[in-house]
Structure formats: structure tokens, C-alpha cells
């Protein structure tokens, strides 16, 4: 899949994210838009996980620790054929498996998340398991930047360092916003890279909304022998829709009819422009 196809997919994914949130009347809009390029690259280029191999343990694993951006995950799994669009559109309906945080009741979801600060340690357990059996698989986990205030994250990092988990790739969706406001005002994270480095991890920063940059950084894994990998993916919360970008209120705001039409319009224009480039 070439860069342009991936970029086109990102636009389509953004439209689906907005559609399912709009139609279900609930969702974490801006965070799903900020991390979708990361999921796009992971599922279409890196992970090699699909419905045919998902039930085996012998494959790469992905845990979405920032569970609230579930609409991004459901969207990509739908595109990968884990279920139909019709099933996806039952999101948030009574008795649907598609609830507002990842659940293993949905085919393709690795682990139930939603409470923050859990996914990293689970990923550490998986990565240790692969090391014990000398299996060549990697474990990817996506954390929100606001999530890094959870102390359990730092417990997990210490163990990742201890066990030299170079098969663990921790991606931080660094969109700099959380529900209350800017991360640096709520509970400052900087200097973030230095924090990870001092915990013994190997860190790279990328533009987390550039599929090209993401592909390149994933190709460099493992960054260093015997060191766990951290990718600080600098993203824009709400990326792709002008009036949602960097607006804190859109953390879990649902677009009304007008906003939905405008957002889809913007994304359609981006697609036409991409095709003409």
C-alpha cells in the first residue's frame, strides 16, 4: 500500500469516525481523530494482524491503552474485515457489543481498556511472554499523553527496561490536550523525552499525523538493541476538521447536523485535493 493510498484511507477513516459518533450520539471525537493515522499505519503496514490470524497468539499484538479513542480502533478493524459496517453502526445501541471502550466481545480487540494506565503493563506481559519463548513478535501499545499521569504507567516502564523489551513499542499520542485542558497545565509532562530516556527506553519523536513519517519510524524498530522503544507521536487533537482541531471541548463532543455536514465536506475536499496532487 503506497503513501497516497494510506493518506486516502486516513481521510476515509476520519469520515467513518465522525459518522459512527454522529449516528450513535456519543464518542470521543477529537482523540480518535488525532490517533487514526497511527492506527492506519500500524494495521495497514506494520502489524500484519487480520481476521485470519487473530485467534492465534503467534503474531504481533496491539493494545490500545487510551481506550476512549475506541472509534478509531473500531473503524480500522472494520476496514480490516473483522466485522461489517452494519455491525459497526450498532455502536452504543442497547445490547450491542460495540460499546464506548474497547472490549474483547468485539472481534479484533486484544484487551479490554478504558480505565487508563493499564495497557502498557499488559503489553509488557505479552512482550515478556514472547521473549521467554524466543518468538519474533512485537507488542505495540498506544497511550494518551494525559494518561501518563497514571503512576502504573511508570511501573510498567521500569519492568520493560528490566527485561530489555526491544520487542515493545510504546506510542504516545502527544496531542497536548486532555479533558480539562492543556496537558502542561493539568499536570506537566515535559521534559517528556528525557523522562523516558532516564527510565532506560529508546525514544524517537515523529509527526504522528504523517503516515510517511510513521512508516519510517516503525521501520527503525528496534531503535537500540535490548531497549524498549518509545515513539512520541506529535499529533493534533481533532486532526482533519478545522473547527475540531485543538479545541478542548471536542474531547467527547458529538457533532450536530450542521457540524457533521461541514466536517464531511472538509474531508471530501481534502480527498479531492489529495487525488489531484
Amino acid at each position: 500500500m503506497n503513501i497516497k493510498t494510506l493518506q486516502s484511507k486516513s481521510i476515509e477513516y476520519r469520515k467513518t469516525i465522525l459518522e459512527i459518533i454522529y449516528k450513535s450520539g456519543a464518542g470521543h471525537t477529537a482523540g480518535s481523530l488525532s490517533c487514526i493515522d497511527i492506527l492506519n499505519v500500524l494495521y495497514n503496514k506494520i502489524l500484519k494482524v487480520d481476521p485470519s490470524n487473530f485467534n492465534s497468539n503467534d503474531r504481533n499484538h496491539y493494545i490500545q491503552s487510551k481506550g476512549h479513542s475506541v472509534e478509531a480502533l473500531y473503524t480500522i478493524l472494520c476496514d480490516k474485515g473483522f466485522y461489517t459496517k452494519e455491525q459497526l453502526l450498532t455502536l452504543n445501541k442497547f445490547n450491542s457489543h460495540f460499546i464506548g471502550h474497547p472490549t474483547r466481545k468485539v472481534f479484533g480487540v486484544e484487551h479490554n481498556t478504558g480505565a487508563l494506565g493499564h495497557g502498557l503493563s499488559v503489553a509488557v506481559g505479552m512482550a515478556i511472554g514472547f521473549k521467554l519463548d524466543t518468538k519474533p513478535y512485537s507488542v505495540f501499545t498506544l497511550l494518551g499523553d494525559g494518561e501518563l499521569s497514571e503512576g502504573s504507567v511508570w511501573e510498567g516502564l521500569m519492568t520493560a527496561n528490566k527485561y530489555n523489551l526491544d520487542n515493545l513499542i510504546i506510542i504516545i499520542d502527544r496531542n497536548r490536550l486532555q479533558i480539562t485542558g492543556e496537558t502542561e497545565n493539568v499536570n506537566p509532562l515535559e521534559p517528556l523525552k528525557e523522562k523516558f530516556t532516564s527510565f532506560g527506553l529508546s525514544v524517537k519523536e515523529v509527526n504522528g499525523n504523517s503516515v510517511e513519517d510513521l512508516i519510517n519510524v516503525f521501520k527503525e524498530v528496534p531503535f537500540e538493541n535490548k531497549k524498549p522503544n518509545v515513539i512520541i507521536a506529535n499529533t493534533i487533537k481533532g486532526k482533519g476538521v478545522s473547527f475540531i482541531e485543538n479545541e478542548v471541548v471536542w474531547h467527547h463532543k458529538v457533532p450536530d447536523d450542521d457540524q457533521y455536514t461541514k466536517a464531511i465536506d472538509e474531508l471530501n475536499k481534502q480527498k479531492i485535493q489529495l487525488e489531484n496532487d
Partner: protein
Amino acid sequence: MIEKANLEVFSETLLDLARHDKDIVVVTSDSRGSGKLTNFGKELPDQIIEVGIAEQNLVAICAGLSAVGKKVFGVSPSSFLTARALEQIKNDIAYSNHPVTLVGISSGVSYGQLGSTHHSIHDIAVLRAINNLNIVIPCDNFETKKIIQAAVNFNEPLFVRFGKKPMLKIHNDNQSFKIGKGISIKEGKDLVFIATGETVQRAYKAIEILEKDNFKCTLISMHTIKPFDESLFLDSIKHTRGIITLEEHSESGGLGERCSSILAQKKITTNFKIIGFPDEYMINGSQSDVLDHYNMEPKRLAEIAKNLIS
């Protein structure tokens, strides 16, 4: 006959099983010594993961190891395991349905004089309220061994807790055992003792005293708190004059309240007494002294029993 501590039987049984199954992995939080797993670590260093004093991390790592096919035992003092890491137990083990065995060592008031920060008299209550989690508490070496053997391939999330003091032999080695099925140790019509874990031993001694006074007692080892063996409970209390429940746990939310809810909902009225720890700032002392103080001294138990049905 006094045998070993259940803790010791746990570690010996697990080492024995792990020698023949490299997928068995133990995870500890600086609890290798307290869990009697030092020999395990020496003999099978590749099958023990040490995460340091980090219980939340321990439980979530257990889930991850299980997810990639390991048979995982997370071992940590019950107090810290079930309070500090409660959300990990709820979400990463139970809700995510990873068949990990969580082993709460030094449970109840095993830590004696070390006090309330180390006591786990809340663990049954909090874990009972979590869906998809089995809770098992052995009364002696036999039950401990059977639980650990069953846990390896149990395929569901499991919590087991025990203490560290040598135990009386309660069961014969040919006793059948199944998680979810309580065991009737003695049968008699006057009184029924329903006990769980190591308090079975105190009920056993109390019954010996009562038998000298010609009281006929039933004793049930209710080793599995969840799923609860309701049919054994109901069968055992038919025609009895009184029921006493015993647990090394708060009176709130434990075995006794489980039994009382069944009695109430089945409209069964009988003499009924819950013996556990009351809602108060607890007295200090050794495990044995604390249990004695809170009515679990066998002579005191026998008196309470007689009063209950007189």
C-alpha cells in the same frame, strides 16, 4: 496431625508442576521470599518474573503473559494484591477474561502484629463483587494442593488466598475435590458450621468440644466462595437447630453474609450467627490471638454454639 503451612504446600506443588510445564510462569512483586518461591526461582529462573514492589504492574503483566499463552500465577500479599491492584484485577483479569491465578499470600490477619495495613480482611468482599472471578480458600494442605493443581488448567480467572502457619490435617488424601463444590467434613443434626479457609480448623476443634457434650455437628469446608455451592449449603442446614459461619475476614461481604442472603431469600428462619471481624478499629496481636479475641477460640466457639441453640 499438624502438617505444613498451606503456603509451603502451594510453593512445593507449583514447583513440581512447573518442572514439567515450561508454560507455567510465576510473577512476584518482591514477594519471592514471602511466597516461599526462592527455590522456584533458583531452579526455574526462566519461569519467574520479578516486577518489584508494584502490584498494579504485577496484575496487568499477569494478564499479558496469559494472553500470549502462559499459565500464570501472580503471587503477592493478599492485602496489597487485592486493594492496591483492584482495578487491574477487575479490568485486566476478570473483565478481559484472562485465566490468571492470583495468589493472595499472608491473607486474613496472618501478619498479626504488623497491623491493619497488612491485614486483608476485605479481599473476599471486594472480589465477590467482581464478575467472572472465582474465589477459593483452602482449609488445609490437601485442599491447597488440589486447588493449585486444578488452577494450572482452570481456564478462568481465579483468586486463592491462604496463611503461613502450619495446619492440621483435615481431609483424607482420597477425598474428592472440585473447585465450586464444598466438602462436608462431619455430619450432625444439632448445629451446622460453615467455614472457609483456615477457620475450618477452629470449627473442627470446637466441634470436638461440643461432641464431648453430645452435640452432633455438621462441618462444611466452603473452600469456594465463588461460585458458591448453594445446594450443599441448603442440604446441610435442613433440620438443623442453628448455623454458625466462620471466616478470617470482615463480617461485611464475606461468607456469612453470602449465607444470610440465601437464607433471607429462601425465607428460611433459623438460629444464625456470623463470626468474623466486626466493623471496628481492630485489636493488635498475633494472628492466633486476634482470631481468639474475635470469638474464634474453639472453647469460646463451642459456648457460642450452645447458646445459639439453647
